[in-house]
């Protein structure tokens, strides 16, 4: 059996897209925050909170879409929380974000154990079904890969387009980017950097929550402690790889999804006698290398990590 055969069938490509979607959502979330000048290290915690909220609500109410809504809300709430820390109190973004992730991770696991401790059976929800798009899904190879997916996946495609248009074609998007590059310039244009950053972080939180909900309502169907497993951190890397542009970020996320799917395949096929973890290293290594090449040419939003102080003019 040829190694290449493993990766050139529709099943593999569809799996790659499936695994990439939460990364796309998370990356859009991080992109939005960073474009406004805030590094969101709370993303890992926000995704986890979204995953549990989505799962618990879907499990309790029987409605997957209510679960999605709940995940979005809890994400936005955490985004607001982070905004209070880093925008209002101007705390250091790195430490505050990490603190949020550590606290939320502990709280989420605690809550899961508390709510679902009594049942021995594997607790799960019936996940979203794939909805093939008529005609488009009949295209060979690309059809099943892109257009025989979950409704949430199509929403994600839409979000990539919407965010691109928002950032580069609307006044509000320009305001957001200005705040991320030069808050003082934004102020002289009558924009409140504080307000923009609070809103950006809430939107970023909502997207991160949605990414978490996708993980168990579409991909896995149950909540596990390893459900997010560093996917939030990967999104930090993807934003850099995608040079802070939604479309490039989509491409980067798809590439990561493919590596992830490849790694799973190799693991199960047993063709290559190497520890599968070696393949897991690749995306991170690629990011590190990309960082080195990108750092000078695409250094990211200029005001990233810099708290805005209204009295410093």
């Amino acid at each position: 059996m040829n190694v290449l055969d493993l990766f050139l069938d529709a099943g593999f490509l569809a799996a790659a897209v499936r695994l990439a979607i939460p990364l796309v959502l998370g990356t859009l979330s991080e992109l939005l925050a960073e474009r406004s000048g805030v590094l969101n290290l709370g993303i890992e915690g926000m995704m986890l909170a979204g995953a549990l909220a989505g799962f618990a609500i879907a499990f309790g109410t029987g409605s997957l879409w209510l679960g999605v809504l709940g995940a979005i809300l809890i994400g936005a709430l955490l985004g607001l929380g982070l905004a209070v820390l880093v925008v209002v109190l101007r705390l250091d973004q790195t430490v505050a974000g990490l603190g949020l992730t550590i606290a939320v991770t502990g709280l989420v696991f605690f809550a899961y154990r508390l709510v679902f401790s009594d049942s021995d059976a594997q607790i799960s929800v019936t996940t979203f079904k794939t909805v093939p798009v008529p005609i488009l899904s009949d295209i060979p190879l690309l059809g099943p890969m892109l257009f025989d997916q979950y409704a949430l996946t199509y929403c994600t495609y839409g979000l990539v387009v919407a965010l691109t248009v928002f950032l580069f074609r609307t006044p509000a998007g320009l305001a957001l980017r200005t705040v991320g590059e030069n808050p003082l310039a934004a102020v002289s244009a009558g924009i409140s950097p504080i307000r923009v950053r609070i809103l950006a972080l809430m939107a970023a939180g909502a997207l991160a929550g949605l990414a978490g909900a996708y993980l168990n309502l579409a991909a896995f169907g149950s909540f596990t402690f390893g459900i997010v497993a560093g996917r939030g951190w990967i999104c930090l890397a993807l934003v850099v790889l995608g040079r802070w542009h939604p479309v490039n970020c989509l491409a980067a996320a798809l590439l990561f999804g493919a590596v992830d799917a490849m790694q799973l395949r190799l693991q199960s096929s047993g063709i290559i006698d190497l520890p599968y973890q070696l393949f897991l290293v690749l995306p991170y290594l690629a990011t590190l290398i990309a960082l080195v090449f990108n750092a000078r040419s695409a250094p990211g939003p200029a005001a990233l990590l810099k708290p805005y102080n209204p009295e410093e003019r």
Partner: protein
Amino acid sequence: MNILLVPRPPSRLREVAMPFLAVLASLVICSGLILLAGVNPLRAFAIMFEAALGGRFEVTETLVRAAPMVLTGLAALVALRARFWNIGGEGQLLVGAMAAAWVGALTWLPQILLVPGMLLAAALAGALLCALPAVLKTRFQVDEVVSTLMLNFIVMFLMMALLSGPWKDPVSGWTDSPDILRAAEFPILLAGTRLHLGVLVALGAVIAVGVLMKYTTFGFSVRLVGENANAARYAGWSMSRVIVLVALLSGAMAGLAGAGEVGGVQFQAIASISAGYGYAGLVVAMLARLSAIGIIPAALFLAIIGTGADEMSRETGVPYFIADAVQGISLIAVLIAIALARHRIRILRTPRRKQQT
């Protein structure tokens, strides 16, 4: 809308009291969580206290648990002082552990050299791993937050590959490294307990780092770089050199934490050797307000919560994860407390316009 932070007059009392208030606040939140789990918080705290500090053995266990967090705390402290955001403590701890496990199993090394060799190798491995992002930062302007984070994962997966490949334990077949030699196990300081040499190393490191930061020109230059990069440049210090040196020191501390876990606790390298100590180090450093001596109570606090929560969860069924929650909550609480100790918040409805001149 505009939100202003109005500086308060400096107050020594507030500065000192705030971390304690923060810890208190996080314990109050923690009581709420325990109540949610249907357990009386007072009983829960009594169990935690008893389990962590109730006797000679319990105290030594808490010390053993605190040791790696003291070292990763120092690692974070040194780096944060210079505003070098090393969040790669976890990876540096892991390479330290691997280096120690490798040296500890060398049969050709004279036995007397095993333990010092392990410490040295671990410190060196951690230092080198941390120097990479520092060089990338100073040479290529690569942001160290992302690069150190990426290195954590690279190291973690490489370690797992190593443990399930070439290093797979030949005796048990488990995915953990071969045991270190008997002579490589760290000496026990107190018979009948697990109090090992690594705890002493951690204590020594606190003193060493404290002296280094306070009384040497290197410590002074670190402070300059951290507080005002330009001042450091005018004072004739090469910022790049200071940052690389800081990274070497920071990584070495985290690496030593790995050596302690291998030589004093696990006697082999296992994938789960760290229990998040690398990230906990950042919490410790912030709780300690970046003071070397403060690292000890801060690490002890987290260790007490950790050992205490273990026992509490066994006895009362309150999920163990409360320990992780307290870690994060106390970090956030202390950050807020510091900000509020120095500022008052004032919200203005309309943005204040600067007078045009």
